[in-house]
């Protein structure tokens, strides 16, 4: 019986890590991601999401959820997003595979 309970606990833990692990990780490190200039925005802004790898279509599609996808900013690992609302900005900051979020020039 005790063995069954332990297994169940382990199973639940593993599933929770798979489902929510990345979210939590991203949220915990969100502060370091957002450029100070973007800390207290009140309206839609244009930003550049900087990645430390070449994005695949998967990543572009995910980023497009947070704003209007506006192509790349100079190099292929810098993605422009326009009209990012403050809520979406917070969500974007919690995406752990994004390295930095800078204001667009």
């Amino acid at each position, binding site marked *: 019986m005790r063995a069954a309970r332990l297994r169940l606990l382990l*199973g639940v833990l593993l599933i929770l890590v798979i489902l929510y692990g990345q979210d939590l990780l991203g949220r915990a490190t969100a502060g370091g991601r957002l450029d100070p200039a973007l800390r207290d925005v009140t309206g839609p802004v244009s930003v550049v999401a900087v990645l430390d790898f070449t994005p695949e279509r998967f990543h572009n599609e995910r980023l497009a959820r947070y704003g209007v996808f506006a192509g790349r900013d100079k190099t292929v690992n810098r993605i422009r997003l326009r009209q990012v609302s403050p809520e979406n900005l917070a969500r974007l900051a919690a995406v752990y595979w994004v390295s930095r979020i800078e204001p667009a020039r």
Partner: protein
Amino acid sequence: MIRATRDLRVLLPFILLIAVWWGIKAGADVSDRLLVSPPAVWSSFSYLVTHGILAEYASTSLWMIGAATIISFSVGVPLGFAVGTNRYAARALEGSLRFLQGISGIAWLPLAILWFGFTHTTTLVIVIYTLIVPIVFNTMTGVRAIPENYVLALRSLGASRLRIVRDVYLPGALPSIVVGTRLGMGYGWRALIASEMLVRQGGLGDLIFGARTFNQIDRIMVGMAVIGLLYIIVDRLLVQPVESMTLARWGVLRR
């Protein structure tokens, strides 16, 4: 200490497999388009994890199987009870259920796609269908296997219908219900992957089928391994413990 070595010994055959696999790949100089070496698969796995891809696809599949299981269980068990307790209903439905069992959920996929499009709804419907048939069937069988005497005895003592369900039907049918659910989840997981391959709206099936288009054999193998691993985790670390615990507490073990 002894427990630990016994658990670790589970890994031995896999180590052997990886060694043989690596040997074939390197020794026969198999093309990368056919087979990829273990280190390549590992680095692909790391990439997919650290770049957010694997977690998302795996989560989609997990949510889907979870939702489908809950829905199928909530609908299927009461249905199975209703049908199992009524002789005529059982006789009416048994043959048709058996017939449906012969038509896998995957066969209905094209029809579901015509009706619901390439959406998650399609996948959900197909997986629910796949899950619900074994659940209803097994619940029905479990209920019908309960000796009528038990029911009559309780009724003669004045027990209400609900009481009879709780004290006789439920414990008596529980082993069958649990077996049916477990079977159903096995079939359902397979149907889920197949559906995701066709519908291509996320999930591990989508991942491995999509990787095919770009000949990313390493990703296909990562996907396959994860599919197997997740099923084993869900089956052995979630369903089986629940099975043991419910049977130990309530079950009339009729193995």
